[in-house]
């Protein structure tokens, strides 16, 4: 960001500034003006003085001349303050009447924020650092092997960098959706009067004002610094039937200097690129349901609609069903990103495989599931190696969110399973 103000030295703005400096220069303060301000000093007031409520000052004996004078001074001062409407001025100057409304206004003026995010799901806490721009670029640094995810919602592109493998997995996000935890979107969606005051609380050494916003089954809590008018901490708690999940954002840095390279949604040098969406998909027409003319095996009964419990399950089922349809009923050996990328590339290069749009969406969905589970410290477990759809062997994959474990069967039906039904972990996990 350029802050060079000299580049436009002859601009109308600079001429206006210069004219203002010249034409508004004054020398002396008129005597009658300064005399009124001096009257404040007639009491011998010194600054700073100990904080002492006015009522306390007049609580002593009032009989002496000194105390009557003090009372008069206080009354005059209060009258002056009221007379010039200073209460309203200070309210705006030092502490907005509604810290929440001010925070909404203030955040909407910011261009970038960096913060630490924590996801607490059934006691499992995962932590990552997020950089978010108001323009819609998100960087999630998940640490460890999970790597870095970059999302540009303006063009619908997501890049997952895995440093350990020097791999960059590129995919299209659904439309131009922003990540669910996009802070700026959150503040765009909130009305300034939505926040319900909850009192004050000290957070990270700052005396904050606390507000809650409840929408459906979720509750957002905001700890607002009344001086900066910016959040110090935020939580978003989702109350689900199987327990609550809380998303906490803290350690905010507002409008920090960010190296633009960190926000480049691109494949860095030295990384192998793997496209999870075939490049040709945009030009493809959606394939017909009966796609046998293209040489795709529909896998017969296996194609029946699953009772998907949620979008995670739907995404996994879509990908597995597509793989089985494209490969004579066979399921992938594993669901690692490298394997998924290989499948996508192979099918994308197959001229007989016409369903490339669906392929891109399915791979992208699976990719999202893996990232989402990774953020909560979970993963998608898979038992499909060497197996086929409808082989009658039961569970193919499962994952746990909160206290609920969802299983996907070989016929792509889904169900919630009890702890004693969870299969043994696949070899190597």
């Amino acid at each position, binding site marked *: 960001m350029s802050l060079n103000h000299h580049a436009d030295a002859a601009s109308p703005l600079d001429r206006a500034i210069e004219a203002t400096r010249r034409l508004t220069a004054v020398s*002396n303060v008129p005597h009658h003006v300064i005399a009124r*301000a*001096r009257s404040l000093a007639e009491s011998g007031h010194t600054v*700073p003085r100990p904080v002492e409520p006015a009522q306390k000052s007049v609580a002593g004996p009032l009989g002496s001349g000194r105390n009557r004078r003090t009372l008069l001074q206080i009354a005059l001062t209060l009258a002056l303050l009221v007379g010039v409407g200073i209460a309203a001025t200070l309210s*705006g*100057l030092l502490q907005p009447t509604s810290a929440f409304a001010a925070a909404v206004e203030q955040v909407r*003026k910011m261009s970038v924020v960096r913060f630490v995010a924590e996801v607490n799901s059934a006691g499992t806490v995962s932590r990552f650092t997020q950089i978010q721009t108001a323009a819609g670029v998100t960087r999630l640094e998940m640490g460890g092997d999970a790597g870095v995810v970059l999302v540009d919602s303006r063009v619908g592109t997501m890049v997952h960098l895995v440093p350990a493998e020097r791999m960059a997995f590129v995919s299209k996000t659904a439309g131009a959706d922003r990540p669910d935890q996009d802070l700026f979107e959150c503040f765009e969606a909130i009305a300034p009067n939505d926040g319900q005051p909850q009192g004050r609380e000290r957070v990270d050494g700052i005396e904050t004002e606390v507000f809650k916003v409840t929408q459906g089954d979720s509750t957002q809590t905001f700890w607002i610094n009344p001086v*900066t008018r910016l959040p110090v901490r935020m939580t978003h708690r989702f109350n689900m039937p199987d327990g609550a999940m809380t998303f906490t954002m803290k350690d905010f840095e507002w*409008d920090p200097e960010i190296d633009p390279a960190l926000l480049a949604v691109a494949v860095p040098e030295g990384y192998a690129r793997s496209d999870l969406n075939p490049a040709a998909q945009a030009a493809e027409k959606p394939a017909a349901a009966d796609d046998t003319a293209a040489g795709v095996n529909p896998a017969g009964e296996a194609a029946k609609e699953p009772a998907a419990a949620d979008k995670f399950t739907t995404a996994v089922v879509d990908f597995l069903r597509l793989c089985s349809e494209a490969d004579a009923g066979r399921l992938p050996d594993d669901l690692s990103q490298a394997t998924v990328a290989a499948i996508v590339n192979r099918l994308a290069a197959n001229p007989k495989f016409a369903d490339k749009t669906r392929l891109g969406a399915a791979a992208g969905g699976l990719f999202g599931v893996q990232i989402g589970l990774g953020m909560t410290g979970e993963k998608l477990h898979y038992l499909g190696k060497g197996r086929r759809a409808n082989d009658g062997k039961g569970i193919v994959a499962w994952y746990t969110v909160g206290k609920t474990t969802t299983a996907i069967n070989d016929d792509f039906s889904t169900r919630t399973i009890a702890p004693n039904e969870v299969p043994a972990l696949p070899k190597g996990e």
Partner: protein
Amino acid sequence: MDSWQTIVETHAGLVWQSIRRFIDHEEDAADCFQETFAAAFAASNRQPVRHWPAFLARIATNQALDRLRSRARERARVTHDHDFGQTASRLPEPVAVAEERELVDRLRHAVTTLPKDQAEAFWLATFESLPHAEIGASLGITANHVGVLLHRARRALQSLIAPSIRATQES
């Protein structure tokens, strides 16, 4: 520990200059001056003041901006009740004077349309020559954030002032 009288006498010139940059009308400016010191008087009871010039400059700027906004809303004195009497003798040509007055008014009006923090940061940095760190301390933000606000303020002011000047020249 300073006496209040010392504070007033030491900084009266600074406060008066800050206000007069915004407000031509002397009675308005005088009221603003009183409000500034009254606000400072009250605020100093609530919090220790580390740097009086910056503290007072900010309050004066705030007071003057509020008054200017109010006047702009009333569409009154600011544009029609100029009082450049104190500087008139230094002005070279009537046409040039009129043009410069026009520039001053446009800048003042444009500043009132900025978000409050941008307007404050811009005015304090440009006319009070306060360093970013000092402005940041006064506004409760980082010096880096002050830089961002200034960048945004200048960008907005450029776009607000340039078209109006072109329109004036064309007419």
